[in-house]
């Protein structure tokens, strides 16, 4: 009992401050996210799109990326999840592939992505739209120097084998999603 109580107290004391700052910040973040959503909807760049998963939470988006024409991913559509942190846009959103994506910079199992602008190169001027565009171009131009999926990196130079592997893992989007 004695051991637990300070921990509980600490948790109790930290919570109000955290929520206090986040609710204050949440207003501006929400505003920013709405603005980004509006921009994304109105520009609707070809092949990329995203929308909040539910009307209750603006921080969780579902996205869609189509492989650019002329790349090996052409004609394939990938679902992704975007999670915006409470202190967005000072911290990059977390993005992962929901559709299995065979790609040198994508973890085939978990869907995690290795992209510099999502990690150390992130700045607040980026937006959901720029991130989605970067991901779309990453599909066609992988960074084979720091692969998450070494097999894919090795196969990149052999398009036929690569395509076979890609299609083996790829699952088309069904409407039940």
């Amino acid at each position: 009992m004695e051991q637990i109580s300070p921990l509980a107290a600490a948790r109790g004391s930290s919570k109000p401050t955290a929520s206090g700052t986040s609710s204050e910040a949440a207003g501006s973040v929400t505003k920013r996210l709405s603005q980004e959503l509006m921009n994304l909807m109105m520009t609707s760049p070809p092949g990329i799109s995203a929308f909040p998963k539910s009307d209750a939470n603006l921080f969780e988006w579902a996205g869609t990326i189509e492989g650019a024409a002329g790349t090996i991913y052409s004609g394939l559509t990938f679902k992704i999840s975007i999670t915006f942190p409470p202190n967005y846009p000072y911290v990059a959103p977390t993005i992962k592939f929901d559709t299995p994506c065979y790609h040198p910079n994508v973890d085939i199992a978990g869907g995690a992505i290795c992209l510099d602008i999502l990690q150390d190169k992130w700045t607040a001027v980026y937006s959901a739209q720029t991130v989605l565009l970067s991901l779309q171009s990453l599909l066609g131009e992988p960074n084979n120097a720091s692969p998450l999926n070494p097999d894919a990196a090795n196969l990149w130079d052999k398009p036929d084998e690569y395509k076979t592997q890609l299609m083996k893992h790829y699952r088309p989007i069904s409407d039940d999603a």
Partner: protein
Amino acid sequence: MATPALCNQVAEKWQRSFAKLNREKEGITGLLEFTQGWLMASDQLRPRDKAGLATKPQYDKAKLRECFEIIRACNLHAVFLDDYLDAIGRQLPAITNDIDFYMKMYEREPTAEHIANLISIAARWQRAWAPLPEMGASALSAFTCTFQTHLYSILPPSFTTGFRDLISATFDFTSFEAAPQWLLTRFPCPHGIPRPDFTLWTIMQELGLIERYETLILSVCYERIEGHVLEASEKVWDRQMLQEMRDWMSREVVPWLTMPYARDARSAEHATMLMKNVGSRLDYHVCKTLADLRTREIFDIIIDYPDSRPALDDMKECLQRVDQRSQLVQSLRKANRRRLLHPGADTKLILTQYVSIIRCLRIVDPQGVLLFKVADPIRRYLRDRPDTIRCIVASLVGDGESGDSLVDENEPIQPINQTQLEDYTDPNWEPEPMDAGPEFRANKPSDIISTLISIYDSQELFVKELQILLAQRLLAITDGNFDRERRNIEILKIRFGEAALQVCEVMLRDMTDSRRTDQHIQQQKASDLHPTIISRHFWPPLQANTFVMPGQFRKIQEDYASEFHVFKPDKKLLWMSHLGSINLQVELDDRTVEVEVPPLEAAFIELFSEQDEWSVPELVEKVGSIERPQAIKALVTWVELGVLKEDSPDHYRLLKTAEESGSAAKSSGKQPTAVVEELPPVVTVQQQQAEQMRVFWKFIEGMLTNLGQLPLDRIQQMLKFAPNYDRNIDQLAAFMEAARREGLVTVTNGVWKLQRD
């Protein structure tokens, strides 16, 4: 062999019969008497053929009565009657021949005369063969029955037509002078009878024809009524016809009616009583015919309102007598659908007619059930018309030039009444009429404008449209006289309430403020520019193709803006260069042209002062943000003024010296029409809404792309991310349905998804 018992029986029977006939007289004298009586009576009654038709043999009444008494005493009169009727039956073919003869005559030459002759001859046969009164009433009725059954059985079908002709002809036998000769000779009337067809009717009664053909006689009468009502009342709406028709009835039809129904009336009262039944049927028919006619004509009657007011009063009275309300509703709805609610009809026209319908049906049915039923499709149709609101609003502010406003000037201006609850404490309260539907709202006689505005669920649209209209009108005013607009706004405030019209109030104040501000700035530094300064937030969006004014105009604008900045440091002027007009003096080598032109024209001529020749793309590039057609239009204005000339396609040159041939010819006719007045371009409500829906569609597309398929209510919820989303789920449903028709989305079990290509 006959047994003794049988012999006894026969003998006894014979004895009894003999006793009956002999009536206990001496010997067989009784029997002889009976035989003699029977023979004499039979001979007297024997139906004679044609030869014997004229006269019956004379007979001794007392003697004959004696004969009948003997027969009756012997209890054999029934047998005697049967015998007599059998004899009649044997002679009947003689009648058949006569009937055939006259029917053939009629078929050859269909005149009523032959039918009258036929009736006459049939009546003579009937009289000739009728049993003597001494035989008693039962004999007479048995005879009549036999005779008439036979008569009717041999009348051919064409007789009905002929009989109808005859009845129809009797309508014209109003006096002895008017009666044809055959009527007077065949059916001579006793002295002192008012109508020459009296005997004819009596004979028809004798033959049972009136009873048998009563429906036919009445239908002839109905036809008469219909014919007359149609002839007299069709398209006559400027006086009340119902009373006229009733007068006609009592003048023309009732005297005739006395013939079949009240021939034997002892007095006028008796006649009235006898005809009461049939008279009310005929009166009903008059009402019904008139109601039918007016129902057919109702659409045109409404067009003619208020000249057709008497016809509507008639209609009201008829409807109280005849249950034609649903027919009236149907007829009017059908006429509206066919003649009014189609794309060819102008919205203003539909509104005018709708207002007339309101006024007319209120006369016919003050409680408004008919109106409610008829108005419903019109209102629904108007709701779908894009320019309905604008038309209503235009009539609200009383468009001066349109002349006949929908609103009656004399009607008091009332606040737009919201739906009221029934006031059951009202001593004049009446229940809803029988045919009121469940949706019927007893709308108290409210003014026309309220009714029109209630076409839409909310007043918001009206107020928006009102702003746009007001913006156009205010910007079109050049003389600074806003009294008219101010008056309109005040009137509208009464209707819509202060709050709704606040924006309009601001707009109006902007106008007056602009003038004051301008006066002030002119005092500081005189300028040729007199801008109207409007508050962006309170004005409807103006079409934004603001181009940059070149040269001196730009300079004037900038000077003015800097003065304005001094006057109101917290405000900044954004120029709407495309609005307004400019008074120009163009000095050329040999002439000076003075015109008032729109700004774009001025901008172009300014550019031509820098350089003599321009191509259209160069000009467009120079001022920026204008469309090619606008540029061409502006250039053509100058060409028509003889200032510019199109040397080659798209290339224009300044005419420093006038070109004799071309400009002389053109300037003669066209010079004064240089400036085309146009309403200031304000973005309409529809355009605004279309733009909004485009945004919402992007969001729907986005959510369906990323979230797969969604039910309608989820789409509605998710659309809260879209800015200013204010549609309800029904509007969304309609929108999605439209998208489905476009092939953009599909729906299965209420779940929507994008149509993938």
